[in-house]
């Protein structure tokens, strides 16, 4: 199947179809130019593995993560209840998302508000697809130097460190680790609402500090698993302007090599 196939839950319901999993695209994945590429890459993977999935499309709304972490609990809970209502109406049981922020919020913060789903970050989901034989990854990237930036909400937030690394290794690459990696990973600077505002006065931008650390390893690719981290590191590379490294989401690397 080479066609790019995406259906909304509304369309599927009209046809009387159910899905195995809902792909939560997220606001960044829907609107941010760079993140949209990650969304499309992940859909390619889902298509390739013949996953029966749907998206909410225009019925999806911000998960509320940014609002909550910026202190607006009202707005967060309104968003959460709205989304839960929609997803429960479609009888959603399983969710996969390319955004660790939505992942964390839906997985950990929606249940007490009435939203109980089995939630996967896309790296977990892809690992699973490979394990059950639905997806085969070609080790095409051997010889490339890749480092992985742990997104806070995936790593420290939810203790997922190995799944993204397994995928990079499946591409035939031995990861070169930054000194601050895994639980010691240094934030990209976007979390907690920072993505949407200028930072406070300081001596350096957080994303610059992190990008410099990554570039210090002279990698070909800085891989990550979060659209916000992606933006911050991409901006960092432009600002630092050293070497030829590029930032890719793991979904993009996999989609190119299946």
């Amino acid at each position: 199947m080479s066609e790019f196939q995406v259906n909304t839950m509304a369309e599927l319901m009209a046809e009387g179809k159910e899905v195995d999993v809902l792909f939560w695209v997220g606001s960044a994945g829907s609107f941010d130019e760079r993140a949209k590429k990650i969304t499309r890459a992940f859909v390619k993977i889902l298509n390739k593995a013949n996953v029966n999935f749907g998206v909410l499309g225009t019925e999806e709304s911000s998960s509320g993560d940014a609002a909550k972490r910026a202190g607006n609990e009202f707005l967060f809970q309104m968003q959460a209840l709205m989304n839960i209502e929609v997803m429960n109406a479609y009888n959603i049981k399983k969710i996969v998302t390319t955004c660790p922020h939505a992942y964390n919020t839906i997985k950990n913060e929606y249940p007490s508000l009435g939203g109980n789903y089995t939630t996967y970050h896309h790296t977990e989901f892809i690992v699973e697809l490979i394990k059950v034989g639905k997806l085969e990854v070609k080790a095409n990237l051997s010889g490339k130097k890749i480092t992985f930036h742990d997104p806070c909400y995936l790593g420290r937030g939810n203790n997922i460190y190995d799944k993204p690394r397994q995928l990079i290794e499946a591409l035939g690459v031995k990861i070169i680790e930054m000194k601050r990696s895994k639980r010691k990973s240094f934030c990209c600077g976007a979390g907690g609402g920072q993505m949407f505002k200028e930072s406070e006065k300081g001596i350096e931008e957080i994303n610059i500090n992190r990008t410099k650390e990554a570039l210090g390893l002279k990698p070909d690719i800085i891989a990550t698993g979060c659209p916000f981290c992606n933006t911050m590191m991409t901006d960092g590379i432009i600002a630092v302007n050293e070497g030829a490294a590029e930032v890719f989401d793991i979904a993009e690397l996999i989609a190119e090599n299946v």
Partner: protein
Amino acid sequence: MGLSNIIFILVFISAISLFLRNLNRIINNIKLGRDINRSDRSSDRWRNMFRVALGQSKMTRRPIAGILHIVIYAGFVIVNVEVIEIIVDGIFGTHRFLSSFLSDSFYNFLIASFEILAFLVLIACVFFYARRNLVKIKRFWDKEMTSWPRTDANLILIFEILLMVAFLTMNAADSLLQSKHSYYVTAGSFPISQAIIPYLDGLTLSSLILIERFCWWFHILGILAFLNYVLISKHLHIFFAFPSTYYANLNPLGKLSNLESVAKEVSLMMDPNTDPYVTPTTVVEPVESFGAKDVTDLNWVQLLNAYSCTECGRCTSNCPANYTGKLLSPRKILMDTRDRITEFSYNKRKGIKDSKTLLGDYITSEELWACTSCNACTDSCPIDLDPLSIILDMRRYLVMEESAAPTEINMMFTNIENNGAPWQFPAADRLKWKDE
């Protein structure tokens, strides 16, 4: 029973009473916090306490400090078994009371291990002192480490060094006296204090007794003084690390609490059966403020955390905002909370008018808005303290009570309200990526 026993008993009772009174005050201060339910998952909580507080599992992430800390900690616990003997001797006028009913070899083993541990503690304290004051490790000299926190840390180390020196000198004098005076029963093995014996050997009997008694009194009075000092010091972590790890947040770090007070209002707002025009007939109970402005708006676990912090600064040294020169320091958040609750309760007790608040007078909004909620602080805390939850609660107050978020954050809120995304894109375009 001689005069010295009576003096000992009086000093001992007053020191313990003072300790209990002040400890009780701190516990009452902690109870000023709002309620939070941490009575669930008790077996996980015990496990966490055993692993993190007793087992020091997170201390060793920095191996040098971790191992030295374990030495001091083990020394502190085990050498304090000796304190039981000292207290009994002090009350009843016995000497080396434990030796009277333990076998010689076991008593020798005990005293020898106390000595070795005391010596290791001594070395570790000297090393720690040097690390703080000569090597000047950055996190011990950050902005919030003003003169008192630095003095506090040094006093503790000097205190412990002196206590250990007194203990070993006492043993050295004692071992000499054992062959010279009938009061000093022959008991104990002294592998470390042997080294001090040559310096005392030529002294007269009375000087030796003076030295032994001085060290004995210094050791026990020092410990009693230290016990009380702990309550006004960062050193309180030696007790509070245990409840703090027991009542710690056991959820994934990424998970934040959902405010119940907000949930009530939101569900009312979104309930289609509610008539918006009807005036409520039932008396609405006064709602507590959303988020935290002062220490009494925080929950008791957060206040317990504040008292438990030993200002090691691992949180701050790992904080990306702090690392890149922003004002935020998670350690300062906890220190400020502790200082403010101390001030608040003092003023309350003395009936002094108090118009200060934690937010504003101690913690500025600039600090709060610098947080990326990355959880580096909570992850790195050796006793699972949670400064991030305090930052979030204060942001909640700023946003929901004062609408005092930075402009761009307010714009982000408006965008989510209007079009369901933090950016200004029409909700109808949400699926456009599909066709690009």
